[in-house]
C-alpha cells in the first residue's frame, strides 16, 4: 500500500535585499466607505463617564476614562481586542456588576444622577443593550417584545392589550413588515439579521434613553449589517447610541463620535472625521491605518 507523503510547503520567494514596503500614511482613512448619514444636527448630553476605572480581580481593564454620551449622535468605541471597550460599555448599565470580581471607581451619571444610585433593574430599562450574538428568547416574536413590556415575570397585560404596542415596537426596529403575518413565529427560526433586529426591538421596547450595542453586526452578513446600520443611524435622534465595533469601516459609516481605546485607556475621543482623518495621537494613527489591531 502506498502511503501519502506530505506535500512540500510552498514558500513565497523573499529577497532579503528589499525590505517590505512601508505602510502608507493614513492621510485619509483608506477603506472608508460612503457615510450612511448626514452629520447630526443637534446633540444633547445624556450620560457622562467621569474618571472611570474598572478592574477584574484587581487587574485593570479600563483606566481613568472620561467621555460624554449624547443623544443625537452615534458614539463608536473602537480599539483592539481586550482594550476594555466592551467592559466600559457593560459598565454603563451596570452589567459589570454580574461579574463578582469586578470593581469600579469613578462616576457614571445618567441625566445628572449617578447610576450607582439607581435600582439596577430600573437603570437597565433606561440603558438597554444588544449583544454580539443574536439572542432572542426561545419564544415567539410577539412574546420576545411582550416580555419586555410586561412587569418582571407577569403574564398581564394580556396579548390583545399589547398587540398594538408590540407592532409599533417591531415597526420601529424595521422588522414588522417581515413578521407581521405571523407574530407567533418562533424567534429562533428567524434569520440572523432578523433575530438581531428583534433584539434591537426588544431593547427599544423598554423605551430607553441610551442604547448600547456590543458588536451587533459581527455575526451577520453584509446585507443584514447594512439594514442594521441604517436602523442605528435612524435611532440616534431619539436615543443616545453607543456601539462597540471591531470594524473600522463600520465605525466610519455610522459614528458621529469615535473613542479609540487601547490597553484600557481612552487614547483619543473626537468626531469620526477627525479621528479617522487627522488623528492627533500616533497610536490612533497606527490603528486606523491598520498597522496593528
Amino acid at each position, binding site marked *: 500500500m*502506498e502511503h501519502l507523503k506530505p506535500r512540500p510547503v510552498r514558500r513565497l520567494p523573499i529577497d532579503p535585499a528589499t525590505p517590505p514596503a512601508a505602510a502608507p500614511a493614513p492621510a485619509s482613512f483608506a477603506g472608508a466607505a460612503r457615510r450612511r448619514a448626514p452629520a447630526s444636527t443637534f446633540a444633547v448630553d445624556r450620560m457622562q463617564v467621569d474618571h472611570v476605572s474598572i478592574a477584574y480581580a484587581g487587574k485593570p481593564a479600563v483606566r481613568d476614562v472620561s467621555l460624554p454620551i449624547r443623544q443625537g449622535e452615534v458614539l463608536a468605541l473602537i480599539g483592539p481586542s481586550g482594550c476594555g471597550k466592551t467592559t466600559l460599555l457593560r459598565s454603563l448599565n451596570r452589567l459589570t456588576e454580574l461579574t463578582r470580581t469586578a470593581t469600579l471607581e469613578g462616576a457614571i451619571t445618567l441625566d445628572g444622577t449617578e447610576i450607582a444610585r439607581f435600582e439596577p433593574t430600573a437603570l437597565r430599562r433606561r440603558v438597554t443593550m444588544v449583544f454580539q450574538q443574536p439572542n432572542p428568547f426561545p419564544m415567539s416574536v410577539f412574546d420576545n417584545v411582550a416580555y419586555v413590556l410586561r412587569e*418582571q415575570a407577569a403574564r398581564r397585560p394580556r396579548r390583545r392589550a399589547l398587540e398594538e404596542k408590540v407592532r409599533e415596537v417591531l415597526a420601529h426596529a424595521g422588522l414588522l413588515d417581515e413578521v407581521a403575518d405571523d407574530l407567533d413565529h418562533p424567534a*429562533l*427560526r428567524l434569520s440572523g439579521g432578523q433575530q438581531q433586529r428583534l433584539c434591537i426591538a426588544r*431593547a427599544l421596547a423598554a423605551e430607553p434613553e441610551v442604547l448600547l450595542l456590543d458588536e451587533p453586526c459581527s455575526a451577520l452578513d453584509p446585507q443584514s449589517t447594512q439594514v442594521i446600520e441604517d436602523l442605528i443611524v435612524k435611532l440616534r435622534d431619539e436615543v443616545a447610541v453607543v456601539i462597540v465595533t471591531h470594524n473600522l469601516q463600520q465605525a466610519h459609516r455610522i459614528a458621529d463620535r469615535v473613542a479609540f481605546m487601547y490597553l484600557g485607556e481612552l487614547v483619543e475621543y473626537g468626531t469620526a472625521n477627525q479621528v479617522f482623518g487627522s488623528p492627533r495621537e500616533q497610536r490612533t494613527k497606527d490603528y486606523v491605518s491598520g498597522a496593528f489591531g
Partner: protein
Amino acid sequence: MSTPGQRVDARDRSASWKLRDRAGLGFAWFLGLLFCAIAASIVIYLLVQGLRYVRPELFVTQPAAGFTESSTGGFLDPLLGTFIVGLMAMAIAFPVGLGIGVWLSEYGRPFPLARAAEACVEMLAGLPSIVLALFGTLIFQSPALGFLSRQVGNGLVFGRSFFAAATMLSFIALPLVVASVREGLQAIPGHVREASYAVGKTRIATTRRVLLPAARPSVITGLMLGFGRVIGDTAIIVVLLGATLRFDGVGGVPVLGTLRGTGSTLTTYVFDNAPTGEGNQPTKAYAAAFVLLMIVLALNVGADIFTRKGRALRWST
C-alpha cells in the same frame, strides 16, 4: 493512489496501520458488536416471550392465589400500582429536583452549601435502593407517621404503604431530575441571561420566563427518566410496599385507604412469579416483564425525542 480532496475509506486508511493498532481496532469492533448483541438478545427474548404470553385479559384481571396458570389471574393491580407509585414519587421528586437544579445552576450561593448539596445529590445517585428502603422502614414505622400506613391497636406501625414506598422512591428519581435540569440550564449561553437582565429583568423573572422555558426539553427528559427509574425499582417496593399482589387498603376512605395500604407493582409481580419466586408462574412473569419493558422503552424513546427537540432550536455560538 488517493489525491487530496478524495474521500478515503476508513478501512483503506487502517490498512496502513501497525498490526497492534489493527488488532485494537478489531477488538473494539468485537466488543461493540458483542454488547449490541447482548442488549438485542435480552430485548428480543423478552419480546418473543412476552408476545407469546401477554393476553388482553391479563390487563384487566386482578392477581389471585392459585397453582395453575388459569387460576392466578392477571396483573391489573400491579399495573395500576406501578403508575400510582411512579406518579406519587415524581410528584415529590420533580418539584424538589427542579428547585435544587435551578438553585445549583443559577444561584449556587453560598458556595460551600451548594457544593455540599451537589455532593449529597451525587451520593444519592450511587446509593443502593435497598439501603434507602431500610432507612424508609426506620422513618415510616415511627408512631408519628402511623397515619401513612397501617397501625395496629397497640401502637405498632406497619410502615408499608404507597406513601412510604413513593417517598423513598422519590430519592431514586431526584438525582436524575436535578442532573437534567442543571444540564438544560447550563446549556443556555450566558449572554441570553444577560440579555434579559439588560432590559431590566430580575434574576427570578429571567429564570421563570426565559431560562426554564428554554430548558423545558431537558426538564421533561429528566421527568421521564426519573419515572422510568422509579417504576423499575424492586427493593423499595418489596420492603416498603409489601408483597400483597392485590391492593390491600386501610380504613374506609376510597383513595386514601388504598394509598395507606399495601399493594404491588409490575416489578414485584415479576419477582413473585419468576421461576424462583413464591408464585412461580413464569408465563405471567414474562408477560408482566414485557409490559414493564415496553413502558420503560417508551419513556426512554420519549426522553430521547425531547432531548433532540431541545437541540433543534439553539442560539448560534
